[in-house]
């Protein structure tokens, strides 16, 4: 009896001594274990994660720390179940370490998005593996890395990843503003002929002669899209012509805000040519936000009313060919303009004239011939020349392998 008692006490004492001696490096989860399981535990301790490097996440609003570590030596043979990342404030005791995230085996990077700005932290990485106890229960065995250096999260005032964008924005912006001011001073600026815009007058005239309607489709996107703004700007010019020639104008729209804006523009256009009585609110009317519902509605109207002229000016998606081909089938003159590269081929195939990309944005300047607007086009063209020169230089340098020129323009993810 005494021997059994002493042996049991010895086993317990050794177990406690072992546990306390190694408590800084391993922890075995034993809460639910039976005595027999405890008695035969000899967990194989995983190698801890290597050096833990921490840094404040750059180019952000703070509250974020990046933690990188070298994988545990046991990670390659699949012994590591996961990593736990713990954090404490720098002057706090070690028992205040709290788990702030975990990473799967093989991962060596995590971002702590819950750090407080200005507070100094240290991190450590816990490599967790599973060990089987004598009675078959799975235990978690943890080993702790050394603590990292001190790190503090902070917010930055400038995103250095976007420096090249800032440089280009300033250069291009300056060029455009410079040519606008030159134009204001009366400098004569040449603009090449754009066939689609030259044909606007004639197209409106055709509708007038035939006694048929003009349809104007300002795209399927909302007012936050710059193409829609360009589209409704051109609508103002077309509406003025329609008012002058007393031609019926129909503007079916896909967005409520576009309806409100377009209505104001068309109303002003009619008033400016002295024909406010000819304006009807229902000239501009809403159909549906749904892409193909809109296309179906316009197709139906086009087939029944057979307008002489149809304008498509704005942002379009897959409905572009459905609209354009239907208009073509009834023999209407179609002038399209969009800055959606994927839809341009469809408009080119089905319409009589197409404004390609930037020609849509140039339309307002082209039709008004206003010096300030023409000046901005000139600035745009000079900027394009600059970009072409940079591309040519870059192609030569990159092809010769002299320098990784493209790296100057790479914008890293935030």
């Amino acid at each position: 009896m005494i021997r059994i008692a002493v042996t049991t006490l010895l086993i317990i004492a050794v177990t406690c001594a072992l546990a306390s001696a190694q408590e800084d490096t391993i922890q075995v989860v034993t809460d639910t274990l039976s005595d027999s399981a405890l008695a035969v535990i000899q967990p194989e301790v995983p190698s801890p994660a290597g050096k833990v490097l921490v840094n404040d996440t750059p180019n952000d609003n703070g509250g974020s720390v990046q933690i990188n570590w070298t994988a545990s030596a046991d990670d390659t043979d699949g012994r590591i179940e996961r990593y736990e990342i713990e954090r404490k404030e720098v002057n706090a005791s070690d028992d205040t370490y709290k788990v702030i995230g975990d990473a799967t085996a093989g991962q060596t990077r995590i971002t702590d998005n819950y750090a407080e700005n200005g507070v100094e932290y240290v991190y450590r990485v816990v490599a967790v593996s599973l060990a089987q106890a004598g009675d078959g229960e799975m235990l978690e065995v943890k080993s702790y890395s050394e603590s990292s250096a001190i790190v503090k999260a902070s917010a930055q005032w400038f995103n250095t990843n976007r420096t090249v964008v800032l440089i280009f924005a300033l250069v291009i912006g300056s060029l455009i503003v410079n040519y606008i001011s030159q134009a204001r001073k009366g400098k004569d600026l040449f603009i090449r002929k754009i066939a689609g815009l030259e044909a606007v007058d004639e197209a409106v005239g055709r509708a007038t002669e035939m006694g048929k309607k003009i349809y104007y489709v300002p795209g399927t996107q909302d007012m936050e899209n710059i193409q829609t703004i360009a589209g409704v700007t051109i609508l103002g010019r077309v509406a003025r012509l329609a008012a002058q020639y007393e031609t019926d104008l129909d503007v079916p729209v896909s967005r409520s805000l576009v309806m409100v804006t377009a209505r104001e523009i068309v109303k002003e256009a009619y008033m400016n040519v002295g024909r406010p009585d000819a304006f009807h609110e229902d000239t501009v009317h809403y159909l549906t936000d749904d892409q193909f519902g809109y296309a179906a509605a316009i197709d139906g109207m086009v087939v029944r009313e057979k307008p002489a002229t149809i304008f498509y000016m704005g942002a379009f998606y897959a409905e572009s060919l459905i609209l354009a081909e239907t208009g073509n089938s009834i023999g209407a003159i179609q002038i399209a303009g969009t800055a959606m590269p994927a839809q341009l081929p469809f408009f080119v195939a089905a319409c009589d004239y197409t404004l390609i990309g930037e020609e849509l944005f140039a339309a307002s300047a082209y039709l008004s011939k206003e010096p300030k607007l023409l000046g901005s086009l000139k600035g745009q063209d000079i900027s394009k020349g600059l970009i072409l020169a940079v591309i040519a230089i870059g192609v030569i340098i990159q092809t010769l392998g002299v320098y990784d020129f493209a790296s100057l323009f790479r914008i890293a993810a935030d």
Partner: protein
Amino acid sequence: MGFWDKMLAIDRRWIFLFVGLSLLIPMSLGIETKLSISPETAGLFDVYENLPPGSKVLMSFDYDPPSAPELQPMADAAVKYAFMHDLKLIIMGLWPQGPLQAEISIQRALDSPELKDKEVEYGVDYVNLGFQAGNEFVIQRMGSDFREAFAMDIRGNRYEDIPILKNVKNFSNIDFAFNFSAGYPGTVEWVQVAVDRYDVVLGAGNTAVQAPLAYPYLGAGQLVGLLGGMRGGAEFEVATGFSAKATVFMLSQTFAHAIVILFIIVGNVAYAITGRGKSKLEADR
């Protein structure tokens, strides 16, 4: 009017008729076609196939019914494969109709003979978080915490009460992300936010028109694979072993392309023989 003049001015309804027949007849013949799998599809399937049972897969359905003919087959195959291999699905959408398209895929998978006897439970094996407005900002919010973007699922259950989401806080708890995209917001936004900032492992299915925009990301390794259009869907069906609509439709698509090519050749011959046509304005003058 000679034959070639007639061909030049052919009523477009004849073209529609021939295209329609070229699509319908192969479908009804039930011919099995052997389809080779492209490296883009193989890359994606390799990663998907190697996900162990229990892996959490985030599926973003970023398309609407018009794009369903191209994207639904690949989505159906992906969902069915996931259920067959005990992958846990977390479904969401950046387009309003996306989650509803997901429900169609889920229903088709559950109704299939292969899954007839398998118990697939909502909330345990899959969850549909529904649609959230905000485009790429939704992805950004998910990077910190999924709950910031989706407080509830499509059925009104609270995030905290859904078993499958118990240990899912953000992208670091997701093993794979699969995006089905027909435009904006879509694959490009997922790459720029989820992959670049949060190291998500991402595979994508795009419509044929959108796929070229995603190729640079595939080349850069930011996408593990890319399924492009109906061809991509058919290849994925073959890879997963569930040959279905896309595989059948590929033959129809081939015949339709052949008919279009034939008509173009005939049109050019007619043009060469008869001379150029006039523009409407020239004709009016």
